[in-house]
């Protein structure tokens, strides 16, 4: 895994004035978990990777296809560099309650539905159907029904489809299974693994340690706005993570 090409790297990054800076590389095909007590920096780290928050020191860069690298300084830059972000608060920053399921899916990538410059509903439907199949979204009449008619799990799948429609190299997931039922979680986990096998890099912020253990190759534990420990392989255990979260050396 460690010999795959890097898709996103943080250099000398610190999340708070005076916090110890750290380096991290996210490589193709790996699933990186972020853990920590709420508000201890894992959220800030993810938002910094997405360009939504400026780092206090250091920088986040993505390599360019033609060589060299590009600094991620804004959300627009991140989107252009093939980074997709799935926000945490689905109701406040994810769905458009007054829009249909189909429009909610397509909104971030409407430019791709164009035929001769104009929006083609058939093209949009075709794009949606691909992800509906892939994520097994259960939604009757997506062109007419509002997104709010769906269950939390299916809303989340539509938002995931929206992020995937960018065809990203890096997918940042901020607590993707919050308020999602067990059956849907299993579907999401297998989709995440498939995406990683296809070479996408995933960064998953999880509030459940079990989830991080099941899903992730590498877990970064944060404490007091610093990277307390990157746990890999056999070092990843529930006890180890909890001890690091609370700042007790295990």
């Amino acid at each position, binding site marked *: 895994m460690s010999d795959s090409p890097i898709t996103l790297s943080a250099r000398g990054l610190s999340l708070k004035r005076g916090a110890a800076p750290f380096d991290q590389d996210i490589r193709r095909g790996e699933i990186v978990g972020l853990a920590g007590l709420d508000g201890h920096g894992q959220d800030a780290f993810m938002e910094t990777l997405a360009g939504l928050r400026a780092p206090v020191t250091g920088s986040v860069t993505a390599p360019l296809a033609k060589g060299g690298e590009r600094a991620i300084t804004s959300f627009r830059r991140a989107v252009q560099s093939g980074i997709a972000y799935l926000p945490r608060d689905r109701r406040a*920053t994810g769905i*458009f309650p*007054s829009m249909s399921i189909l429009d909610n899916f397509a909104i971030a990538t409407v430019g791709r539905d164009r035929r001769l410059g104009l929006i083609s509903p058939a093209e949009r439907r075709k794009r949606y159907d691909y992800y509906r199949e892939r994520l097994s979204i259960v939604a009757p009449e997506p062109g007419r029904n509002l997104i709010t008619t769906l269950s939390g799990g299916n809303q989340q799948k539509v938002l995931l489809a929206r992020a995937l429609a960018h065809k990203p190299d890096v997918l940042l997931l901020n607590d993707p299974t919050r308020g999602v039922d067990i059956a849907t979680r299993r579907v999401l986990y297998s989709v995440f693994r498939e995406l990683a096998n296809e070479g996408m890099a995933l960064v998953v912020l999880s509030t459940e340690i079990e989830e991080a253990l099941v899903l992730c190759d590498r877990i970064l534990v944060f404490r007091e706005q610093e990277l307390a420990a990157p746990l890999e392989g056999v070092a990843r255990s529930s006890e180890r993570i909890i001890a690091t979260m609370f700042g007790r050396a295990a």
Partner: protein
Amino acid sequence: MTVLATSSSAAGRAPALKAIWRQTGFAPILFIILLAINIFINPARFAPSAWGTLIGLAAPLIGAAIASAPAILGGRGGIDISVGPIMGFVNAIVVLVLIQKLGLTSPWIVVGAAVAIGGLVGVLNGFLATILRIQPIVATLGTYLLLVGTTLTILPAPTGTVPVWLKALGGPLSILPLGAVFLIWFGIRRLPYYDHLMAVGSDDRAAYTAGIPVTLVRFLSYVITGVFAGVAGLMMTALIGSADPSIGPTYTLIAISAVALGGVSLAGGRGGLIGAAIGAIDIFLLQSALTYFNFSTFVLQIAYGSILVIAIVLTALQDRWLGRSREAR
């Protein structure tokens, strides 16, 4: 209430009708009732041979309502109250400067100037409201006063005449400028921009995390509003056939009433230009019926106010009601 009950069952059968109903609220029902009353009391005025003049009479209000809609659709308090003064300013510049002083009467120059003036004021409004982030109502109040003052300075009293072609746009050919505005809007509806505008109006934070350039989308909504207001100013010029500094600004508030009546949510993200146009036609028909009975303009205002409040309450009820039937399904 029987009218509502039958229309809802009809809407249940035809999904397209239901969608229109949901978008425009009660304005179409009011439209049919008012049209019937008008035709009954004054058949000559509503005869097909008089349609050109009739549409010409209604056009400035319809144009002002359509112009007000895009900025409102952008949400988060987006509104442009300078639409009326833009119309008055365009009227003054076109008649006084272009036609009277410079003698330029070619349609291309006049229409081009009207669109350019509207667009430039739209750029200014957009800059103030979305880039400097002054609250839209305050920002456009600034442009409102600026334009009213400038118009009165260059044109203290009504004066001037317009060329024949422009006069015709207020009479037999009155459908042309309205048709042009609608064609442009239908074009915009098929562009990615329209989806972005509705998304930004619906929820700007979600739009931002979805990667939509929120500021640019809102900025352009003010430019579109400005351009449409410029065209509405031309429609007004065609109707009154001269330059008059006092008429333009009166359109602002009545246009906003028409937009609200037409089911466009002032919170943004809901409604469309068809609804705004129907709302404007409603107000025009009401005006026409009440004037026929020689009611004073004060009574007219009372009527606008009452209809507006009732229509908005009914739209809110309809929302709740549609929401419930959706849950029940």
